[in-house]
């Protein structure tokens, strides 16, 4: 039994991978995540979403930072970049602007994206560049064996907070909406069918999409595990939520009690950076255009210096 299958059995999730999607998007190596890790459900949903959208591996660039979940590009058959801790978004932005024909997906964890890379998230959101950002949020630092993360709840006891966490967590959903992201959703890794649809929506959306995913760390976070989420998770679509209503979206995103919402919180059609950028009006990606200056361009430059 593979770790993925073992995980599916442990948490009772239904893997959405089909033999066809697995064949197309399974990476060179199998994930080394712990058995039971929520990230299996995310990888599975991403592969399924890419397959259902009819994308080919060479049309995709998956960019990650550092952390357990940032190992994902190695497990996906697509172009990938495993970059520095917290830096997936600027690298992904540069790659997308260099070749705007690519479907660029950034992946990582809550420490990577909301902690060390938090500044980039705010600015990537306002820039509204056409990227899909998938954050596997387990509310803990797992790779470093269990310290608080920017999304850890107050009072949580970890190795770095043995007497309880005194700090208030970031809310990625309201933050992303406030900063101008145009597709903001939350998924749950134990519901890969639902997550697959959210990822498909994010990839198809023209602009910056944040998909925050509750992806429990079964090894280091015993507060917010599958047993915690299972009775609380409610779907926005079952509540008749209107994703055009950003105020209602923020209210729903703040809920953290008996009910915790997943689904598409907010979407709007503000034009993406790449669609506004004059340099990209020529359809050929800048990375595929001829290099250098013509004699006429050179002469023009000289004439302005005389």
């Amino acid at each position: 039994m593979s770790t993925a299958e073992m995980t599916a059995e442990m948490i009772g999730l239904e893997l959405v991978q089909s033999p066809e999607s697995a064949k197309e998007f399974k990476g060179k190596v199998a994930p080394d995540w712990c058995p039971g890790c929520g990230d299996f459900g995310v990888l599975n949903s991403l592969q399924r979403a890419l397959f259902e959208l009819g994308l080919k591996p060479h049309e995709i660039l998956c960019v990650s930072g550092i952390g357990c979940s940032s190992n994902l590009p190695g497990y996906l058959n697509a172009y990938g970049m495993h970059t520095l801790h917290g830096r997936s978004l600027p690298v992904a932005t540069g790659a997308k602007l260099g070749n705007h024909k690519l479907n660029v997906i950034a992946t990582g964890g809550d420490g990577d994206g909301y902690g060390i890379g938090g500044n980039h998230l705010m600015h990537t959101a306002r820039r509204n560049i056409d990227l899909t950002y998938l954050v596997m949020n387990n509310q803990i630092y797992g790779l470093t064996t269990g310290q608080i993360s920017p999304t850890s709840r107050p009072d949580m006891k970890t190795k770095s907070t043995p007497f309880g966490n005194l700090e208030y967590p970031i809310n990625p959903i309201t933050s992303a909406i406030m900063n101008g992201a145009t597709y903001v959703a939350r998924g749950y890794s134990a519901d890969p069918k639902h997550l697959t649809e959210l990822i498909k929506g994010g990839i198809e959306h023209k602009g910056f999409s944040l998909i925050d995913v509750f992806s429990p760390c079964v090894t280091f976070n015993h507060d917010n595990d599958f047993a915690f989420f299972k009775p609380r998770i409610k779907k926005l679509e079952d509540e008749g939520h209107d994703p055009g209503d950003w105020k209602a979206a923020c209210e729903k995103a703040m809920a953290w009690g008996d009910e915790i919402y997943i689904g598409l919180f907010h979407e709007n059609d503000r034009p993406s950076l790449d669609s506004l950028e004059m340099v990209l009006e020529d359809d050929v990606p800048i990375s595929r255009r001829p290099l250098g200056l013509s004699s006429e361009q050179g002469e023009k430059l000289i004439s302005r210096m005389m």
Partner: protein
Amino acid sequence: MITRAPKPLAMWTGNSALAMGAAAAGVKFYAAYPMSPSTGVLHWMAQHAHELGIMVRQVEDEIGVANMTIGAAHSGCRAMCATSGGGFALMTEAIGAAAMMEIPAVFINVMRAGPSTGVPTKTEQGDLWQVLGASQGDFERFIVAPKNCLDAYSTVAELFNLTDRAQCPGIIISDLLISEGTFNVDPDLIDFQPEIDRGALLEDPSPNGNYLRYLDTESGISPRVTPGHEGFVHVVATDEHDEDGVLISDEFTHPHKRRRSVEKRARKFRGVAADVPPPTLEGPEDAEVTLVGWGSTYGVIREAIEILAEQGVVANQFAIKWIVPFHGEVVDEVLSNAKKVLIVENNHSGQFARYMRSETGFSAHGHIRKYDGEPFQPHHVVEGVLDLLKSEAAIHVPYQEMIV
């Protein structure tokens, strides 16, 4: 009598020369966070972005700048960014990432007087060791300090060819003197079509089903394919990796594979770096004094040598442009044959003198150093030479006249 009108000259600054040099080298992506005295590069690029088809982005911080530049470079663009010392400090982790992922990109540090916020509008050559130490780990990158404005222009294309061939980062060290100085230039000396060599970048590859991004070749150079090409899917990683890009850093770290990767990267660099021209001695060979400078001191030393000649002192200049690769053997040979070697540099502790000694074992006979924020003027160097010729002092610090 007919007098011929002098040939009209063009005017530019070092920052516009760096930007224009980048455009001529085929740079299609430029990112920056404003920081004096490097901001002029951003302004030139932004002004010419549409006309020349260059993507220009002002980013939230220099960490973002450097990483965005690397992302664009990985997509296949020639990509560049510029900053000053403080911003360069923030870029350093990314420079190592480019080295590890084998992505060519150019980073410019326009030095101002430091440390910290320092003297933002004054010049210094105080970042040599910062640049040499930029990023953790033991890795290869080119470091070059252009000698003047025109040299800055042509160095950009030269460096891009080297970084493309060796698939590694390159760093240009400029300073406020070059970058914000306004200079005349004979327009005929500006070559708008410099040679462009992208090395082993496969622009239209046909798949053979067995592509290895980090193939261990004899030269150490692995054929490079950028994302988007069918049949070449691969992952690049900042973790140590095998020929296929798969990490070898976790669980079991294979010592033989790690050694092979380190040696491969070193080998490719060595091969390409061998083509970098060594410095040459300029002026009479049997001079009484040999003045050694690096980067922007070239012009002022040349003028000082002319003044010294009028005063009966024969001096020559050994100007260093390439910091890495450093031609240690050539430098040692030339300087060992010199009568009196004086190093001229715009900092307090003699950063270049120490670097040169570490690479050659050669200790200079004397030093002319200035660290008051102002650049050297020819008479400062002249006074230094005359002082160190007659006195036994090791260091001369010129007096800077107050200009109010």
